[in-house]
């Protein structure tokens, strides 16, 4: 259990690092939004699932899965609203 939780936590931290690298290196607002929302949510959910394996209590499991479900429900809404606001304000697209 400890080994599985360690692997999940390290994988989540690496996915968060991938999200941060994408938010620095991507050329456009919309590409940056893609990197930040998807990889960031996946990394956080991997860390929380690792904690579920590490602490097998009902409260921890229920609350971790609740946080993951809430995050996956709210991240697309926030991303869509930021993208619509950016298009309304006329943030330019990436032209190669």
């Amino acid at each position, binding site marked *: *259990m*400890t080994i599985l*939780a*360690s692997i999940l*936590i*390290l994988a*989540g*931290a*690496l996915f*968060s*690092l991938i*999200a*941060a*690298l994408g*938010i*620095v290196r991507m050329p456009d*607002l919309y590409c*940056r*939004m893609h990197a*930040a*929302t998807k990889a*960031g*949510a996946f*990394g*956080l959910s991997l*860390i*929380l699932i*690792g*904690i579920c394996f*590490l*602490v*097998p*209590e009902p*409260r*921890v499991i229920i*609350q*971790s899965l*609740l*946080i993951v479900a*809430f*995050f996956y429900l*709210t991240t697309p*809404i*926030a991303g869509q*609203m*930021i993208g*619509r*606001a*950016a298009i*309304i*304000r006329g*943030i330019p697209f990436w032209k190669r």
Partner: protein
Amino acid sequence: MFSEFQTIPAWVALTAHSILGLSMLLAGYRIWKGPSIPDRIVALDLLAALIMGHVALSVAHSRFVSYLDVATAIAVITFLATVAFARYLENKDAPL
């Protein structure tokens, strides 16, 4: 709360905290440098997700299960702040 469960090894916790801290530095670079306001909002969203990762990781290597409440509160507040910023930016006359 203090039931006997295993904790992750110390080097796993240290490595994961270091990777998350490096990711926070990269997101902070984008907040500092971002050319437009929606860039900064996206980076702030990712920064809140990384803080939630730190909090969840401190559940793993300390024994306080109550830190998950902190992660829940940060998730709710981040979603509301992002939606509020996006609705504010949809007004084209809004000062930046």
